[in-house]
């Protein structure tokens, strides 16, 4: 279903933290393309660590984490949200995920983004001033509660999503979707998209790097825009041509348009127990967080 990803840019593999000097659009794009490839590699690596969550069946994790996410989504009290977040931290530690890495990769970006988006609500929401804070700040109690709910909820649900993704290889994540009645065609498309994502990331990276290598200094904005349009167009042509080649290869191997998947998953006793336990905890959280 999903084979090994295409070969990644050598720079991404050799140096995960690779950053190009300068902040011109081409450099920023190169940097972003490498970061995407590096993040995918990181997820593949963490899903092979021998921790608690890595041993469970992917279907059990899907059901469990969606249950937790819904419970966090429905919670109306800080206590329940905090308890769920703490539970996610414990699960991360038991799964041999380093909290510092998680903080840098997910929690901090989510915190900064949500603070940026939700921060003004502290001052815009009318109401009595928040207790314990200087009145001169103009932060209302309702505003503080609103932003608190948003921050904690976003961090909690992000954590559960992250736990699911970082402890499950992509191929098993997709196989589990098939078992959960997602159409086979959709699952095959997701799998192929993931595989060819690396090919196109590499193509885009090569295109920009080739152009960057032939330029001295920074391109004027107008020329830079033309470069981006042409590169996108070339990438589009490559995409269509590759799809034709892949199609021919698939037909040559007997593809008739029907998607069939191998289902290597098996639910054991511990998986059923995990499903029951997570649904029970989610149910209690939903009840307690009303």
């Amino acid at each position, binding site marked *: 279903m999903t084979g090994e990803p295409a070969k990644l840019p050598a720079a991404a593999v050799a140096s995960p933290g690779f950053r190009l000097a300068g902040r011109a659009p081409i450099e920023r794009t190169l940097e972003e393309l490498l970061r995407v490839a590096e993040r995918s590699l990181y997820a593949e690596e963490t899903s092979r660590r021998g921790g608690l969550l890595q041993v469970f069946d992917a279907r059990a994790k899907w059901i469990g984490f969606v249950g937790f996410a*819904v419970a966090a989504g429905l919670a109306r009290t800080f206590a329940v949200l905090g308890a769920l977040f703490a539970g996610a931290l414990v699960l991360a530690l038991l799964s041999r995920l380093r909290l510092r890495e998680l903080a840098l990769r997910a929690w901090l970006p989510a915190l900064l983004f949500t603070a940026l988006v939700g921060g003004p609500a502290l001052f815009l929401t*009318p109401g009595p001033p928040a207790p314990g804070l200087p009145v001169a700040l103009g932060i209302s109690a309702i505003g503080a509660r609103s932003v608190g*709910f948003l921050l904690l909820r976003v961090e909690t649900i992000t954590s559960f999503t992250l736990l699911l993704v970082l402890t499950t290889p992509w191929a098993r994540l997709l196989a589990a979707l098939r078992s959960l009645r997602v159409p086979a065609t959709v699952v095959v498309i997701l799998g192929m998209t993931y595989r060819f994502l690396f090919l196109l990331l590499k193509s885009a990276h090569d295109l920009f790097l080739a152009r960057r290598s032939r330029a001295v200094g920074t391109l004027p904005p107008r020329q830079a825009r033309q470069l*981006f*349009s042409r590169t996108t167009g070339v990438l589009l042509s490559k995409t269509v041509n590759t*799809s034709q080649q892949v199609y021919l290869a698939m*037909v040559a191997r007997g593809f008739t348009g029907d998607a069939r998947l191998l289902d290597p998953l098996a639910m054991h006793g511990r998986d059923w127990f995990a499903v029951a336990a997570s649904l029970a905890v989610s149910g209690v959280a939903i009840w307690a967080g009303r």
Partner: protein
Amino acid sequence: MHIPDGYLSPSTCAALYAAVMPFWAVALRRVKALLVTRFVPLISLFAAFSFVIMMFNLPLPGGTTGHAVGIAMAAIVLGPWGATIAISVALAIQALLFGDGGILALGANCFNMAVAGSWTAAAVYRLVAGRSPIDARRRVVAGGLAGYAAINVAALLTACELGIQPMLFHDASGAALYAPYPLGVALPAMMLGHLTFAGLAEALLTAGVVRYLQQSERGLLDFGMLGDSGNHASRPSPAFVSSRGLWALLGLLLVLSPLGLLAAGSAWAEWSPAELADPAARGAIAAASGGVALPVATPSGLVRLAAVWTAPLPDYAPAFLRSAAMGYLVSALVGVGIIVLSGVGLQVVLGRTRRGGPPAVLPQR
């Protein structure tokens, strides 16, 4: 644009999953029927392409940069149904693999960008490009406008979904449980950035790619990949001709129309003079308006103009029906019926004026 989890209530997420499901089902069936075996690799590669171009930092006039989503590019090459699937798959991988956009909110993100964005882009491109030659500059403009319209429609829907959250979901103290801004704040905050930078990035990139395709890959323009042998610009996209799926969706939306009863109070800026005079309602309006106090007296112009027209079905509640849900359903049926009859009437009139010409449904090439 990508709504993360936690900003929308689970019920909003569920409703938007329900809204996007029929589009996914119809799109899968239609595109699969058109492309048969080519469908899987083409959509997969295009989804990967959409994903990759979302990483591009396009330089914009003024020295800043912006990200394009590529909705219009997908719609122009694959057609709206194909683009619906390709963009949805790209969004799913972004959510699952990179946490960009939530899993619970995936239905909302797909509805905004993959469905509304793709269909807007296809419609605007077709409308503006008209019957112009394949290498006409007008098609470059059409591509740019399609990109601009698509991203802004998607942003508008996102702003509406975020803006209704504090109105519908808050705790006993009045604190918002999800996105904290009312429509009055969410709409301008969201649209300002998209009407300027994000819209510009999408327009410039789409126009540039259309220009490139005119010079190098003409067969890809005008939904060129939605056929079995290259360019089918000579006939209208089948997606536009048959509309069975849309009728089914319309029927579903009619049945779901009583969901409107879940929303308490009036929508922002749709207050009646009676509400503006009621102290309790005034408090709710002020709270939904970011604390801006209302004028002491109801504006005289509003009172005067409100009396000019009395709706036959006020507040979607016909007087002869006791059930509020049934009232919504009947109102929706009446509204849809009037629109459909108007459309049929317009088609008849246009058909007469174009006697002997092509059908009036959509322009043909």
